[in-house]
């Protein structure tokens, strides 16, 4: 069980000047990070009632584009997953799929009190109470519902965190995948599987952590149908018999 204080505030050690102590070695990385913080695409997905305050934040009155934020339609393009309010179990599955489909670095913002602790639906059988059990949350914006100014403040805080390099929770999802998967399995049943291959991705990008694998991922291996990408194959063996 995670608690708010457990939400790992990743202490990213400032990239060690591994490149021979060159003071300019990190300039490029800093620049990329700066661009990341200045260009945030948020997913256009109204998961709950807090989404009603996003249009005002986006449109003429508060104009999110001022700070480089624009809505994007599919998870592939988005950087920020805004979980706007209560998440019913059915939605939670979609949110997890969506999150896994997003390209890292990706950030989760829990808007509204419901994402923090279930809010006023604390005794509802249908809504998940604690978002950070299932996804690594970067930022909570509490309130029911937070005003557009609060949303924008929150996004600005996220922006500053990204610029400072302290918003690396997406790595946590790879590094402690077993933990998140365990919570997901507890809620959705042991045969839960998304079409995204988080473990393979973690291997591919060198994001493997000590807790990426564990008892829950072993359980996943037992039943899962591997969804390996369709490799281009020539099947040269079948090309024989050339007369």
């Amino acid at each position: 069980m995670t608690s708010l204080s457990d939400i790992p505030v990743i202490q990213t050690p400032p990239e060690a000047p591994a490149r021979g102590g060159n003071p300019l070695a990190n300039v490029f990385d800093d620049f990329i990070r700066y661009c990341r913080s200045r260009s945030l695409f948020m997913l256009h997905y109204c998961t709950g009632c807090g989404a009603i305050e996003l249009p005002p934040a986006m449109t003429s009155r508060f104009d999110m584009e001022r700070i480089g934020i624009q809505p994007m339609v599919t998870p592939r393009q988005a950087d920020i997953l805004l979980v706007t309010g209560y998440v019913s179990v059915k939605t939670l599955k979609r949110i997890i799929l969506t999150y896994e489909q997003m390209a890292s670095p990706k950030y989760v913002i829990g808007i509204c009190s419901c994402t923090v602790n279930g809010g006023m639906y604390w005794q509802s059988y249908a809504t998940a109470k604690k978002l950070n059990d299932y996804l690594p949350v970067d930022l909570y914006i509490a309130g029911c519902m937070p005003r557009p100014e609060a949303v924008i403040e929150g996004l600005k805080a996220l922006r500053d965190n990204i610029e400072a390099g302290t918003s690396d929770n997406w790595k946590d999802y790879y590094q402690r995948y077993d933990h998140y998967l365990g919570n997901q399995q507890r809620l959705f049943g042991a045969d839960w599987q998304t079409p995204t291959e988080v473990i393979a991705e973690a291997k591919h990008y060198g994001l493997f952590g000590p807790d990426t694998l564990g008892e829950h991922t072993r359980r996943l291996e037992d039943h899962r149908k591997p969804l390996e990408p369709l490799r281009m194959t020539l099947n040269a063996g079948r090309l024989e018999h050339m007369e």
Partner: protein
Amino acid sequence: MTTDIGQWLGHLIGQVEGVQHRGRHARRQRLDVAPDALPALLELLQGKGSFVHLSAISCVDWPEDGQFELVYHVWSYELKTLVSAHIRIPREPGRYLSVYDIYKPAAFFERDIHEMYGVFFEGSPSMEKFILTEWDGPPPMRKEFDSENWVNDHFDWQDYHPDWLNDIESRGGGIAIRPDEQRFSRKAKHES
């Protein structure tokens, strides 16, 4: 007005057996109907009484009586009156007839009641799940389903213990709930 409609309605429902009429309010008429008589009554109301609008079908659970009460709210655009027809069906096996062939909106409400209460409507176009498609618990709206227990079994709670609360608690204050009364959060924590 009330009496007019009341009389008229009384006359109309005289044609169906097992209907009891209780006018209460200018625009709200209550009918208590024997389950067998309901389809005939609705057909009569829709066909002869211009009650073309099925506003809702509500289901009420009466576990002590072992019954479900089904309430059909129908509205007439011409008489500007809402008639609620109440029937009671046994909780077990919880089956009733669909009125989809009389009122098309019934499909939604019947499917909903089926999901939430487990009442099966014969002849309804679809009894598939709609809202609770990924739910494997019992029908949640039944009175015996305890939502809070379900929540405690399935979800964790945010453990919010800031320093200031710890301070207060260390001084003997804090939230005044005895440990055995705590329904969530710390209880789960202590058990685990």
